[in-house]
């Protein structure tokens, strides 16, 4: 309990991932869902960095986490562009009202 090991980071990452999924499911604002996605991605990056430090020992995990940060930022940029378009067309970003394609 007093020596921080790999399992501490794994449990923390699982908690953040579970809470991120909970945010994705319970938010109706599209940007709220994006915030949940960011939480899940951060949880995955913590796993990469923790395994790189405690298990593998080389820089591969940290570089994977770096790519994860870059990809998450790119995805957030495109998502915000999509949501701005959605707001221009539907006057709302409530995902329950984006139902034109549903039969």
């Amino acid at each position, binding site marked *: 309990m*007093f*020596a*921080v*090991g*790999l*399992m501490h*980071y*794994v*449990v*923390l990452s*699982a*908690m*953040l*991932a*579970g*809470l991120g*999924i*909970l945010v994705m*499911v*319970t938010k*109706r*604002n*599209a*940007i709220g869902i*994006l*915030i949940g996605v*960011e*939480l899940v991605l*951060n949880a995955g990056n*913590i796993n990469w*960095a923790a395994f*790189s*430090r*405690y*298990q593998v020992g080389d*820089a*591969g995990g*940290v*570089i994977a*986490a*770096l*790519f994860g*940060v*870059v*990809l998450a*930022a*790119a995805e*957030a*940029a*495109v998502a*915000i*562009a*999509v949501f*701005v378009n959605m*707001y221009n067309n539907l*006057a*709302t*970003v*409530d995902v329950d*009202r984006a139902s034109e394609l549903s039969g």
Partner: protein
Amino acid sequence: MFEAFVFYLLATVAVGSAVAIVLAKDIVRAAVWLLGTLGAVAGLYFLLAAYFLGAVQLIVYVGGTLVLIIFGVMLTGRSPWARQRPSRWEVLAAAVTCSLLFGTVVGEMMGAGWAGSARPTTKGQTVAELGRELLTTYLVPFEAVSVLLLVVMIGAAYLARVERR
């Protein structure tokens, strides 16, 4: 001992901010609580001796993605329909499902028994090492991410353009 105290402090801030995001009724408050989580995760990267990754997290995630999210919140407004929240039973069912997911993942991880997982195996990577790895071993993903960033910039600028009618 000091490392354990800092880890528990940062973990509490991260998980507490994530719980606050779940409970937030306003999207602006959810974005501010996300700042708390991202900052705590950056602190955890520093604790894991991934100093460059922690700095990149602060610059790109907090200073880039979070600001972009707040831009998006301000550009899309808060419509009157956003006041209706999901019903209590939906939130409870989702919370039970996520707890089951968390329990399953942690249970499987506990049984894995990785060797030598109680002590760190390296003293941490320097920026020079990371740069060398990026340009030798991980050159193809590096170039692929560069092309992806170019495509994302063009795509996002095109998607968000102002149309002259």
